[in-house]
């Protein structure tokens, strides 16, 4: 029985691990469904009135008048009728489609945002964004960290010196400052940018761990034995040593997913995250301060609940994976 099968058996015995794995899986499926357009495709439709309260609170909680602010009125300046007025009205009617202002709901199941968008739909779409960012950035950072760590630890000498120098440079700059600097350099808002920012700055911790593992493993007898049968350096690095340090890689990967989900939230909150045309938990939270002053708590509640559950489940899942892969630590 291979070590992977043994690890799987240990994992199956961990009840907390199984439950958190199920939750993580549910999130991933939800994000996939959202990406495929099966759910939350119409998240940007303005289905309710502005700041539509949750249905269970009743509509009285919000001043009726707020919705009127954005009501489109044909302009009449200096008595001259707008020559494009008729066309604009047409376009407006087309754009707002079936959910035109007359059909806007007074309340939504869990409330709406400033533009009357359903916060549940937003949270689902935000899940997709946040998970994609977290996973992709973690994969990128882990890939870089593992590659650099393997090169530095296995090869030693000037390669090791170079990567250590790079590591020192990256870690000597305060993290948020570094992230903001990269964000400023890339100067483009969007999911890909956020992934690059997080991935390019987040590899350092993984690098250190993997480098130490390679330093330890390259003088192990099984690696010497591989050398003795003529295995090339690349084969020793990737075929022999990598599977033996892969538990470290996997645990780091899932730890960084959590870390980057949180980082994305921070970035979006600060306005360096995803663009205005996308929604993420971070951008939902960014809208929250002004809403909270007015007493609209449902958007922050939706984002927080979605994020807290995801992060907690992912963290517990990571712990279970680590215990299963490296039983000595358990």
């Amino acid at each position: 029985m291979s070590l992977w099968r043994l690890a799987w058996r240990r994992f199956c015995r961990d009840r907390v691990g199984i439950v958190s794995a199920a939750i993580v899986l549910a999130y991933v499926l939800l994000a996939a469904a959202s990406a495929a357009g099966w759910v939350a495709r119409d998240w940007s439709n303005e289905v309710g009135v502005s700041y539509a309260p949750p249905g269970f609170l009743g509509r009285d909680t919000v001043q009726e008048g707020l919705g009127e602010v954005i009501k489109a009125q044909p302009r009449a300046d200096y008595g001259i009728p707008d020559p494009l007025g008729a066309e604009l009205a047409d376009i407006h009617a087309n754009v707002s489609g079936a959910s035109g202002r007359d059909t806007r709901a007074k309340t939504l199941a869990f409330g709406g945002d400033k533009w009357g968008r359903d916060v549940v739909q937003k949270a689902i779409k935000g899940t997709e964004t946040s998970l994609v960012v977290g996973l992709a950035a973690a994969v990128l950072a882990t890939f870089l960290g593992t590659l650099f760590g393997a090169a530095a630890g296995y090869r030693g000498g000037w390669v090791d010196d170079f990567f250590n120098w790079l590591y020192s440079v990256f870690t000597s700059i305060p993290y948020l400052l570094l992230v903001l600097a990269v964000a400023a350099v890339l100067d483009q808002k969007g999911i890909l940018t956020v992934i690059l920012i997080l991935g390019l700055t987040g590899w350092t911790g993984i690098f250190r761990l993997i480098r130490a593992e390679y330093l330890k493993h390259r003088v192990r007898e099984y690696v010497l034995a591989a050398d003795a049968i003529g295995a090339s350096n690349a084969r020793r690095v990737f075929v022999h040593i990598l599977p033996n340090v892969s538990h470290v890689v996997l645990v780091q990967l899932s730890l960084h997913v959590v870390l980057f989900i949180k980082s994305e939230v921070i970035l979006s909150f600060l306005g360096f995250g995803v663009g205005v045309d996308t929604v993420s938990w971070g951008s939902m939270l960014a809208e929250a301060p002004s809403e909270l002053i007015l007493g609209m708590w449902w958007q922050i509640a939706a984002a927080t609940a979605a994020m807290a559950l995801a992060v907690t489940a992912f963290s517990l899942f990571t712990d279970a994976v680590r215990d299963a892969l490296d039983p000595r630590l358990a």
Partner: protein
Amino acid sequence: MSLLSVRNLGVGFGQVEAVKSVSFDISEHSTVALVGESGSGKSVTALSILGLLPETATRRGEILYGGRNLLQTASRELRALRGAEISMIFQEPMSSLNPVFSVGFQVGEALREHLGLSRGGARRRILELFREVGLSDPEVKVGRYPFQLSGGEQQRVMIAMAIACEPKLLIADEPTSALDVTVQKQILDLIAELQRRRRMSMLFITHDLSLVGTIAEQVIVMRQGEIREQGSVAEVFGAPRDDYTRALLACRPPLDHRPARLPTIESLAPAKEERKRGLRGDEAVVLEARGLAKRFDRVEAVKGASFRLAKGRTLGLVGESGSGKTTLGFLVTGLHRASAGEVRFHGEDARSVPRLAFKRKVQIVFQNPYASLNPRFSVGQILTEPMRIHGIGRDEAERRSRAEGLLAKVGLPGSALFKYPHEFSGGQRQRIAIARALALGPELVVCDEAVSALDVSIQAQLLNLLQDLQDEYAMSYLFISHDLAVVKYMADEVMVMKDGEIVEMAGSDEIYAEPKHPYTKALLASIPK
């Protein structure tokens, strides 16, 4: 009159019963040796006497000492007993000493704790103890840290600590297995002398039956948690009643003659025919080393080694830890690059031979079978990988059937192909490692302490296997070991290495009969008889 009686002691860890209903007595002023291979339960027995078993262990029976059952004594009372009346010497002196305190402080701790001595009084006592255990310059050594002492000196400090409070019972758990042979002899003599002089009782735990004769009066042989045989040394050695004891006594390679096959647990009958060793002088030379040297930063690990390896013969390489024998083995196999000198393979400079072609002909078997097999590879992958790298066999199916053949050669079933290393015992893993070396059909195999990590009974099986393979394939061996008896049995020629230098080299019978170099003499004198 017995000082300590163990009655039906049973210790279990979860489902595993480590010790099953063991009974024995240790009488006053005598030494009892507890002998067994790894996993026999000997250390667990010792730990239960001291009350040092983990909380999770289940224990049955009783251990009577001074009218008390130690298994039911409160831990506070046990602590007062430990160190003062019963003390212990452990196997690894380096890991038993705390690296951040001076050795004087650590010995003094026991004195202050149990005897309530003042600082000055403790210091005087420490100096006395250090003199008693034969540490040179005790005034200097008191302030030294563990890493500044050699292995033998560390063990002397441990012994000083153990006898500091004049215990009635000393438990020595493999006190010499981590030490070199020459040091081992000194430490054994010291322990035996201290036991006599201080009239202590001693429980001496070892896996090496040959150590027992010189030190103990009573012997207990354990296997798999049970006592197989106990009695006086004369009885057990002279007329062993138990098959296992008999096997343990017979499996060690004898020094005075050389049977063609070693007896094993399965076939105890000693071989009638003898094996002839030594070179005729007309053998082809497979590999020649000329002035090989290796330098790591400031340390010269190997200084100008020159020797020849004859076809189908075994060259033994003997030396203590740190003598450079493993480095020399790595230089020969090309795992290390030499700082100076050259390796000639069939008369050709090995550096001009293509890397893969050289590796194919020169293989190595490592000491630790737990470390030398990749734990993520199945045995099938381990055995077919060298063939794939060297393009042996037309396709995967052919390589697989070859791998099966190799397994059969080393005495493992074909079903082993689909298993992983951790599913095998140490001896079986070493067989897999040998099969891997054979996969390429090498002309020379370096055996770097290939049987040293194994129990005596397994050792004999593997030595027989290596010999059979040599007879069949006419391979040459460079046989590296610290174990002089094993080298004498296996080698045609023997080199003795000390501090990176080859100090003596001669035919295997010659060197054991008439050693010339003083170091060789010292080595041979320290073989336990």
